């Protein structure tokens, strides 16, 4: 499997949508902390709600290789909106791949259309990088499970209709974790305040509190004890998409910086004539190109189910999110004082991309994942 033969047209359509419907508002959404659910719904109508989800339940049936190209285009307009769509897709495709036919038919059509939104709930206050140490419990009761605990930093929380929650049904460690679908209206489910953040303002981040939340047995995804593996499989693809969001954001910052240097006059001519600035642009372009190549390659590996794909995704996530943050930060520098002003949009990209080095596994954890695979002799 590779990118579909239509990918150029699919990407061009997504870019047009991003240019028209997202880019003109991205700055204001950042400032107002506005989560544009109406625009997400419009994106869902185009097929962006279930990009890899099979078509029988309303998905688009595309490949990971398509996905990274699509997310790059979306993120040129706003990395934050694009990244939320990525998280929504991750949670949705976990139900698609781990769910029974009945579960797929119950939840996915609404999610694929983005009339309903999804959140991915793994992190806890005491369990971030060491996610397998999570302490939210799911106790078997007569007709299902009783969930107790709290999830931290949950994207989309409070707005989402569906929460995919990893909770402990068994002993300690990864093997004791199971995955559940918790609907927003479940009794005992509540949310913390929207966190004040450095960036990613166009989507809410909240604590999710589960206080004696009862779900029927058919809300368990897969079998007991499979939850951690399901969550990690979701993250392999999620990491590529987050990286693709960094690439789109960095490309937009680069394009803006290049245009700025052409018109900004100093020392008797346009700044673009300064060789040291040209060299900066050359380095930035190289990082963007290398990032793109790694992303496309890793997506192919994931599509092919290649052994070692998880390690490839980890190295790609780290390289791309680090390199693209550097590119965005360099673009800010090339803008001089204007780069520091909200109005010019570049500092927003820098703030947005910063968190991509932290979430969906910090970049240090990406080293851990890759190194573990190297030490075991798998690569």
């Amino acid at each position, binding site marked *: 499997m590779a990118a*579909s033969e*239509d990918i150029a*047209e*699919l990407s061009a*359509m997504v870019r*047009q*949508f991003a240019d028209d419907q997202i880019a003109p508002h991205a700055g204001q959404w950042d400032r107002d902390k506005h989560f544009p659910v109406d625009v997400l719904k419009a994106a869902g*109508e*185009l*097929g*962006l709600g279930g*990009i890899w989800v099979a078509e029988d339940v309303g998905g*688009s049936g*595309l490949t990971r290789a398509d996905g990274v190209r699509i997310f790059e285009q979306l993120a040129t307009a706003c990395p934050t909106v694009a990244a939320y769509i990525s998280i929504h897709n991750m949670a949705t495709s976990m139900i698609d791949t781990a769910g029974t036919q009945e579960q797929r038919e119950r939840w996915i059509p609404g999610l694929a259309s983005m009339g309903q939104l999804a959140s991915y709930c793994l992190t806890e206050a005491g369990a971030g990088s060491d996610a397998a140490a999570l302490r939210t419990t799911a106790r078997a009761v007569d007709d299902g499970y009783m969930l107790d605990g709290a999830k931290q930093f949950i994207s989309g929380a409070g707005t989402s209709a569906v929460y995919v929650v990893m909770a402990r049904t068994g002993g300690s460690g990864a093997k004791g974790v199971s995955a559940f679908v918790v609907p927003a209206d479940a009794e005992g489910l509540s949310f913390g305040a929207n966190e004040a953040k450095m960036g990613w303002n166009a989507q809410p981040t909240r604590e999710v509190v589960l206080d004696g939340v009862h779900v029927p047995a058919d809300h368990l995804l897969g079998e007991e004890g499979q939850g951690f593996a399901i969550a990690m499989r979701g993250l392999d693809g999620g990491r590529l998409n987050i990286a693709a969001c960094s690439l789109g954001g960095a490309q937009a910052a680069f394009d803006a910086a290049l245009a700025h240097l052409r018109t900004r006059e100093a020392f008797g001519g346009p700044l673009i004539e300064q060789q040291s600035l040209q060299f900066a642009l050359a380095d930035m372009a190289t990082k963007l190109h290398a990032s793109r190549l790694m992303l496309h390659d890793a997506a192919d590996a994931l599509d092919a189910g290649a052994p070692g794909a998880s390690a490839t995704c980890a190295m790609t996530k780290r390289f791309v999110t680090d390199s693209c943050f550097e590119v965005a930060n360099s673009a800010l520098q090339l803008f001089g004082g204007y780069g520091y002003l909200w109005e010019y949009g570049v500092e927003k990209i820098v703030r947005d991309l910063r968190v991509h080095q932290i979430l969906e596994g910090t970049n240090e954890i990406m080293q851990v994942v890759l190194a573990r695979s190297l030490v075991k002799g798998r690569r």
Partner: protein
Amino acid sequence: MNIVVCVKYVPDAQSERAFTEDNTTDREGVDGLLSELDEYAIEEALKIAEAGEGEVTVLTVGPDDAAEAVKKALQMGADKGVHILDEAIAGSDAPATSLVLAEAIKKIGSPDLVLTGMASTDGTMSVVPAMLAERLGLPQVTFASELTVEGEGVKIRRDGDSSTETIESSLPALVSVTDQINEPRYPSFKGIMAAKKKPVETWGLSDLGVDAGQVGQANAWTAVLETTKRPPREQGEVVADEGDGGTKLAEFLAAQKFV
């Protein structure tokens, strides 16, 4: 309800547009696209078809690249396409274009409704819909900013400067629509992939029984003698406010007859 939507492939208004040596629009050296004003007609046709039963056929007259306009309409959701392609058509004026469109629509069948945009974004003449209605013997209902199908007829709203008209017509009819009528959709992933499998027919003048002597630049009723580039816009007048800024602004507006 069978609907034919007439669409045009035009030079991208966002890029540099030019004329060729014979004073016709340069369609070779520029990026083209489906005239944005025609997207409203396509959207309206799709909405009507989706609300009931029927088929949307998209029709274009234009060079090879005009197939792109048909493709975009199919991606948005039209069912099939017809492309009238014939070298003899190059340089045709509005009467000739309307003739070709009329003959093509007769060959497609007898649609209940013919929809067009309010104008093309290159020529912006707005006359083809009226000429086409005349040639087809259909009522012409132009500049619709709202369209409802009611039983055997249509009702439209036409917004004027000082009044709003409600116009009813029997079907079949020709309706041209404005950019106020709806919000055209983007093609979805599914639409883009499905478009490749939709039927598109390409016909020449001989398929339509139109003689080459009735069309083309040589047979046009009008000819463009000369074109001049629009002069670059001049710097606006800056009024420095020395306490009398308001008065100066009012004087300026009065001198320009704005107030």
